[in-house]
């Protein structure tokens, strides 16, 4: 059953050095506040997993929390490169970064296989491409019925998955609406999970019976962090801060300006600093 906790308690209790951590969010609902708490608590040796690592993973990598990244598209969407990730890959700063690279289809299937309790995911993919030659975790399997050769990748089973969601009730049931991404699968695939939400309410009152709900008993911790997805966004609450995504390109380009921004905006602040974004109704 989900425990209602503070962000500091939840990260201290559930995220450990050396863990495999998925902080998912497909552009929408990216758990920035929780990721910043991981940085403040100085977790090290992490393997971070995400289909679309963007600024948050750039920050974790640049602050030295990460040994390895598993991903399928790493960039600042619509803007360009992740300069901290590139610095780690190309120049080993602040330390070397191991990469395991996939396609979106592979990772989406691998999360689904993880949530399904399967050892691997099977799909029609990776045909005629070079990723197969550089990632030993891409293999093939023959369909026992048709003989068709299909791609196989190991399922994703994170030690801990962290997501941000629209709201939760006091029993820890979680509501997600808008672009739902791969968050439900990522939570159900993980051993432990933290869900930060915009608000905790008495009654969820989903907008439709089909809105994505994670029952409280599938989640380890629920934390109220209003605005906690900024500069990502929350459907119906606040918009994606596209101007910040563009500004990040300058901030992250140089090591000094990156470290200064992290000191002022992450290390010397707490999750309450996000509250200002929650009130900016789209």
């Amino acid at each position: 059953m989900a425990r209602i906790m503070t962000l500091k308690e939840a990260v201290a209790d559930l995220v450990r050095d050396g863990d495999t951590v998925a902080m998912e969010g497909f552009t929408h609902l990216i758990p920035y506040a929780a990721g910043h708490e991981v940085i403040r608590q100085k977790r090290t040796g992490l393997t971070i997993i995400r289909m679309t690592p963007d600024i948050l993973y750039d920050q974790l990598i640049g602050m030295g929390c990460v040994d390895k990244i598993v991903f399928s598209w790493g960039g600042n969407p619509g803007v360009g490169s992740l300069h901290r990730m590139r610095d780690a890959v190309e120049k080993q700063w602040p330390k070397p970064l191991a990469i395991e690279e996939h396609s979106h289809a592979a990772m989406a299937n691998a999360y689904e296989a993880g949530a399904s309790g399967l050892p691997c995911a099977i799909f029609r993919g990776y045909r005629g491409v070079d990723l197969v030659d550089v990632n030993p975790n891409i293999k093939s399997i023959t369909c026992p019925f048709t003989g068709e050769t299909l791609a196989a990748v190991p399922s994703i089973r994170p030690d801990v998955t962290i997501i941000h969601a629209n709201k939760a009730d006091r029993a820890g049931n979680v509501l997600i609406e808008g672009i739902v991404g791969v968050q439900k699968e990522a939570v159900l695939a993980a051993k432990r999970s933290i869900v930060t939400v915009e608000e905790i309410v008495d009654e969820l009152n989903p907008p439709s019976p089909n809105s994505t709900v994670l029952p409280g008993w599938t989640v380890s911790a629920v934390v109220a962090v209003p605005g906690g997805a900024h500069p990502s966004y929350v459907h119906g609450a606040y918009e994606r801060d596209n101007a910040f995504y563009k500004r990040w390109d300058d901030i992250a380009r140089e090591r000094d300006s990156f470290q200064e921004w992290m000191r002022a905006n992450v290390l010397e602040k707490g999750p309450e600093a996000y509250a200002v974004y929650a009130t900016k109704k789209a």
Partner: protein
Amino acid sequence: MDYTSTEMMTVAAARALGNDDVCFVGIGLPSAACNLARLTHAPDITLIYESGTIATKPEVLPLSIGDGELCETALTTVSVPEMFRYWLQGGRISIGFLGGAQIDKHGNINSTVIGPYDDPKVRLPGGGGAPEIATSAEQIFVVMKQGPRGFVDKLSFRTSLGHGEGYDDRQKKGVTTKGPGLIVTDLCIMKPDPVSKEFKVVSIHPGITREQIVAATGWPIQFADTVEETVVPTSVELEALRALNARTAAAHGDQA
């Protein structure tokens, strides 16, 4: 009306799409072309973004593949695993519209690294949805600015399959879809030879010379027997594109 080479490219790419197409849209130039088609001659085109939005009709171009605008204007939004399993792998997509950093004469695309994979000169974002879009969508269209660094004789890395080594290489690899059928650039339009599957120039944009195209291409580019001149953008097309770009700039916090 005067127009830029980027406007010519976007308009030419948009014209390739039809009202009945179900189009898996890449971000950037493909997204601009697909939405321009929707705002002009193909109002009922179905645009699908890999973030899960189906039949979206954004007022402004999304900066990312998952901007809220895409979900709010969509018929429905599904999870990302469902998008890749049921809709793409399930064979529901008629056109996959892609871009990339490098392309070769057979329409194979690189968006992963420039230089060796383990010691890259430039680390690019990676393939995202492209490897499976390239093989599961019924047909692929590509829109890219043309230059010798992008149109290369040999890719640093093959992120997504075009026609492989040409001829029936795609079928030999077990792929049953058609693959790349069109490349639109800021200089010209190319289509694959029916047999060798090597891309040839079939239409040249007004004011562009064959020499410019040769200089902008890293392989000995071939021209079709009959090469047309691309029809200039109409005022309707240009006005729709410029209004779209102005709305987009204002929405994303740019100086308009």
